[in-house]
């Protein structure tokens, strides 16, 4: 086993090595042609190269070439593709051995590979690689990285810590730049180093470059060991925003550095510009963010280009900010943060996945490339080495970072709910790795700066030192120091609930004290958001038609999932079930519970309206939400775990139709006629406050047998026929439901229903056919009396999902009394676990009183349970949580002899 794995690994790594060699070979062989590519990438396309234009005017002198190579034409994209591939292969390579990436950050490995490739190139030819110029970096590679981080910024913790993040990002960066710059200037005054010609402006410029932290590696480590949330988000946010600060600062200083004389006015102008740059970026970010959100409002019919808008608008924000020399990073960050919420609400689920995936992909790719190029550039650039300057740079970079963190934390700590302790501060200071931004900025330095090469060398040294030494050592150090961690793995459910309770408590207490904490602002923003922003930016979701559309979509999806891999799972279920001990919940159930809890308890101050009055119907948006939640829970329940749908497995679920008489007398216009068109819409017909059940077929598949009245049976069979047609047309497959109809049901097209006796109920059973993929539908008639006495039925009113579940017991009882004489109509809801054992129990007793024949059941147990393999209520109801739906050829406890109708 081990051998085979290592063998496989060996094989793959050989394959990779070959590819890498091939690719670097290809890159090198293209060198001669490429040597002018530095210009070509950014300026003139190679098609216009003189050689090409000379050849084309006189084609008649040459015979028609049978085989030509036109490398210049494809040169740039070809080269880029190869570079990207090379970097990606490297990444694949060392991700194959997971142990490496745990101890050595990926950025280190990438740089190492880059060093090797650079070494090869240097040995063969003396030219630096041409693809990555600063322009390319800032226009094409930086935006995806920033978009990636800002799009996946954990919003909640970020806004909880926004003050600290900005404090560290803005003030911290200024502090570092000034500190490092001034002290380096001091060092330059030492005669022995011979650096007298570097003036203060240049030192400051260099310091601003060097003060951008880029802790990709640190973040990966922090995430891996799940460090406490506050520290993580501060490092995360800091690295995002201080890029913006650094770039702004750099632009100002690089202008200042070229000025012959700096006056006091210029300092103030610089400060003003700094503010303008930041706020301007913010403004364009908001602008394009809202524009993107607004655009996606209208993309319902062009789903395939939806994801595009996210990228284009954020890129546009970036470019426009760049156009006005504003902070483009700020713009794209704001843009992503702004639009994310609205866009994800507007776009289809699939587009949402696409967006997330592509954002991640582009970001990772850029990052990989940058670190790779960093390695290559280290070898291939001209260096100017000055021991003193470089060592002092290293020292100051570290010292000022540590000092800055310490001092700034002392200032910010009194304002924080949880102050940073010493270990946190250490993590923060030590996590100050330098990375991509420094690298790109230093290459952007104007040529007229005297010590450009020295700066480049120093920057690369600082980057390499921090990435390698600090990046590798931070993991053991943080683990060793036992910096506070949050348990971000699944906590217990207790923890989740209690935490939420505490949050509510704090919110309440703060209300009482009139404290304006972030809860207050969150609340304010939420109100504004609901009242104004959502209305403008989010597609109107209250239109009935969209509910229908949504419902249909979900319903189809649902059924698909059911019909898909279900049988194998379900058939395997019984044996799995036996293995589980009684007190253990399956992991999937646990996850479901966590998801439910974390989703639903999120809203601190929102209390969903309680529908205590009969007339108080939920408004549409609520309906939609409930619908979605339902469907999520149903979808979960259809998976292997059994958690949310305990009711189904516990006893039969019945199809619900209100008694016909009621239906006609109360709301005649809404009575559906079961034409095929209406059948699809049937699920959402709202009648008697009841959602008419749809998924009889689904139920059937799940429960394997249900009891139906004649009318329902008719409806169900039509559903089955209609749906199988629908599925076959839409998706080209049907699990061939071969059903045999009872004689009375021959004429299915009769809208009034077949000539079945109304008094008769039917038991419908679905058999999985052995050997084939099909299923058989079996119908057996039940006599009215036996079905009444032995089958549990629930009142249709009782199973009203959208109205109160806990109220009006008197009214229900009253109605139940009336119902007992009517023909037995079994009901339930479309797969929706909607149990109210109390009422069920109540009902069964009340009916028993009316019907002398039915009183033989123990009053403590709801009658329906007698049908199923009986589950003890005692010993905790967790019992039934373990049960999962499974195929049963026959209901072994069914009281009737199976009288199959052929």
């Amino acid at each position, binding site marked *: 086993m081990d051998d085979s794995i290592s063998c496989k690994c060996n094989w793959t790594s050989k394959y990779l090595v070959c590819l890498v060699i091939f690719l670097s070979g290809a890159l090198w062989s293209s060198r001669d042609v490429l040597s002018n590519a530095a210009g070509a990438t950014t300026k003139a396309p190679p098609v216009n190269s003189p050689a090409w234009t000379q050849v084309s005017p006189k084609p008649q002198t040459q015979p028609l070439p049978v085989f030509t190579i036109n490398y210049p034409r494809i040169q740039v994209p070809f080269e880029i593709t190869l570079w990207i591939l090379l970097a990606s292969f490297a990444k694949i390579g060392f991700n194959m051995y997971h142990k490496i990436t745990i101890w050595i950050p990926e950025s280190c490995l990438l740089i190492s590979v880059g060093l090797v490739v650079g070494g090869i190139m240097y040995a063969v030819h003396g030219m630096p690689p041409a693809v990555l110029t600063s322009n390319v970096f800032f226009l094409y590679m930086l935006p995806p990285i920033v978009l990636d981080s800002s799009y996946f910024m954990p919003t909640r913790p970020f806004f909880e810590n926004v003050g600290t993040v900005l404090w560290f990002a803005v003030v911290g960066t200024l502090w570092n730049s000034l500190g490092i710059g001034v002290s380096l200037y001091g060092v330059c005054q030492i005669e022995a180093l011979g650096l007298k010609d570097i003036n203060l402006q240049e030192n400051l410029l260099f310091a601003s470059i060097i003060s951008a932290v880029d802790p990709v590696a640190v973040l990966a480590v922090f995430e891996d060991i799940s460090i406490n949330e506050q520290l993580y988000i501060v490092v995360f946010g800091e690295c995002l925003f201080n890029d913006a600060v650094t770039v702004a600062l750099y632009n100002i200083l690089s202008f200042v550095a070229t000025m012959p004389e700096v006056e006091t006015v210029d300092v103030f102008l610089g400060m003003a510009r700094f503010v303008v740059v930041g706020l301007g970026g913010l403004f364009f970010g908001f602008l394009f963010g809202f524009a993107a959100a607004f655009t996606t409002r209208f993309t319902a019919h062009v789903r395939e280009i939806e994801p595009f808008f996210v990228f284009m608008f954020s890129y546009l924000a970036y470019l426009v900010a760049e156009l006005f020399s504003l902070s483009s990073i700020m713009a794209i960050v704001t843009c992503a943060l702004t639009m994310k919420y609205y866009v994800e609400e507007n776009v289809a689920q699939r587009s949402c996945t696409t967006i997330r995936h592509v954002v991640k992909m582009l970001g990772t790719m850029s990052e990989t490339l940058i670190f790779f190029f960093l390695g290559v550039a280290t070898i291939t650039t001209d260096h100017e080495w000055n021991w003193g300057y470089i060592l002092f740079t290293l020292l100051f970079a570290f010292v000022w970072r540590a000092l800055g963190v310490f001092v700034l934390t002392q200032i910010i700590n009194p304002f924080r*709910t*949880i102050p940073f302790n010493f270990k946190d501060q250490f993590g923060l200071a030590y996590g100050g790795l330098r990375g991509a931004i420094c690298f790109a900025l230093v290459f952007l330095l104007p040529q007229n700066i005297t010590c450009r090469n020295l700066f480049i060398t120093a920057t690369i040294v600082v980057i390499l030192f921090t990435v390698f030494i600090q990046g590798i050592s931070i993991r053991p150090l943080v683990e060793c120091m036992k910096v506070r961690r*949050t*348990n971000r793995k699944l906590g*217990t*459910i*207790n*923890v989740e*609930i*209690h*935490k*939420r*309770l*505490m*949050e*509510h*408590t*704090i*919110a*309440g*207490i*703060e*209300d*009482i*004290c009139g*404290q304006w*904490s972030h809860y207050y602002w969150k609340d304010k923003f939420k109100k504004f958001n609901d009242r104004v922003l959502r209305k403008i930016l989010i597609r109107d979701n209250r239109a009935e038609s969209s509910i229908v559309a949504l419902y249909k979509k979900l319903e189809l999806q649902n059924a698909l999932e059911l019909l898909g891999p279900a049988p194998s799972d379900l058939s395997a279920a019984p044996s799995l079930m036996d293995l589980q001990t009684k*007190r253990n919940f399956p992991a999937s*159930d*646990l996850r479901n*519970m966590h998801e*439910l*809890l974390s*989703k*639903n*308890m999120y809203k601190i*101050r*929102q*209390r*969903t*309206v*309680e*529908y205590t009055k009969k007339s108080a119907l939920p408004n549409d948006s609520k309906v939609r939400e*409930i619908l979605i*939640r339902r469907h999520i*829970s149903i979808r979960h329940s259809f998976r292997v775990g059994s*958690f*949310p*749908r*305990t*009711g189904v497995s516990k006893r039969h679920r019945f199809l619900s139709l209100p008694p016909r008489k009621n239906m006609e007398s109360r709301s005649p216009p809404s009575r559906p006629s079961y034409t095929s068109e209406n059948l699809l819409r049937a699920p959402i017909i709202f009648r008697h406050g009841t959602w008419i059940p749809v998924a009889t077929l689904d139920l059937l598949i799940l429960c394997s047998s249900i009891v139906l009245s004649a009318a329902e049976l008719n409806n169900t069979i039509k559903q089955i026929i209609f749906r199988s047609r629908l599925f076959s047309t839409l998706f080209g497959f049907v699990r061939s439901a071969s059903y045999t109809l009872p004689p009375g049901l021959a004429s299915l097209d009769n809208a009034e229903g077949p000539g079945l006796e109304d008094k008769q109920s039917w038991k419908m059973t679905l058999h999985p056919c052995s050997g084939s993929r099909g299923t058989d539908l079996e119908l057996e008639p039940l006599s009215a009396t036996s079905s009444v006495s032995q089958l549990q039925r629930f009142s249709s009113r009782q199973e009203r999902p959208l109205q109160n*579940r*806990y109220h009006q017991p008197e009214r229900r009882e009253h109605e139940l009394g009336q119902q007992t004489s009517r023909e037995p109509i079994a009901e339930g809801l479309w797969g929706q*676990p909607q*149990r*109210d054992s109390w009422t069920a129990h109540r009902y069964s007793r009340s009916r028993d009183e009316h019907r002398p024949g039915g009183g033989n059941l123990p009053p403590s147990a709801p009658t329906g349970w007698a049908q199923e393999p009986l589950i003890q209520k005692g010993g*905790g*109801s*967790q019992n039934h*949580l373990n049960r999962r739906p499974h195929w049963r050829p026959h209901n072994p406890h069914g009281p009737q002899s199976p009288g199959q109708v052929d």
Partner: protein
Amino acid sequence: MPFMPEPDPDPWQLRRLNGPQDFGSVKELATNPIGDRIIGAFFSQGQETVDFHSFVRILAHFRPLDKNRAKRPDSPEPINSRISKLRFAFQLYDQDNDGKISRDELLQVLRTMLEMQVTEEQLESIADRTIQEADLDGDNAISFDEFRKSLEKVNIEHKMSSRFLH
């Protein structure tokens, strides 16, 4: 008997609902799912008013923990200690003051916090699961000790603290 208005209470006394100065006037509390319980926590049993002293004592539960203060072994447990914060939270569940969170009490809290968003069935299984997880002595209820144990890893000092007057 004609309706006799109660004599005006001490201006430093807060009542549950009526009056512009009282808890009922805090609008946000009405939307807090456990608002009633929080208000209830301010009133000791049988009392309908709370004076300034006890009001502040309740609020003191939520002071952040001061780590720098030297801990003297003979000093009484400070009111903002981890354990009293926990006890406060526990009492929000335990409405009948029997020292245990029963399944019903847990269900009530869950219902208010999750209302209308999950089915009763799911609620019940969550409650069962919760109790099952925390219940060590098998009495199908969560005692304070069990409550404390289940929250051992949670940073209570953070969660149950608010920075007043900052």
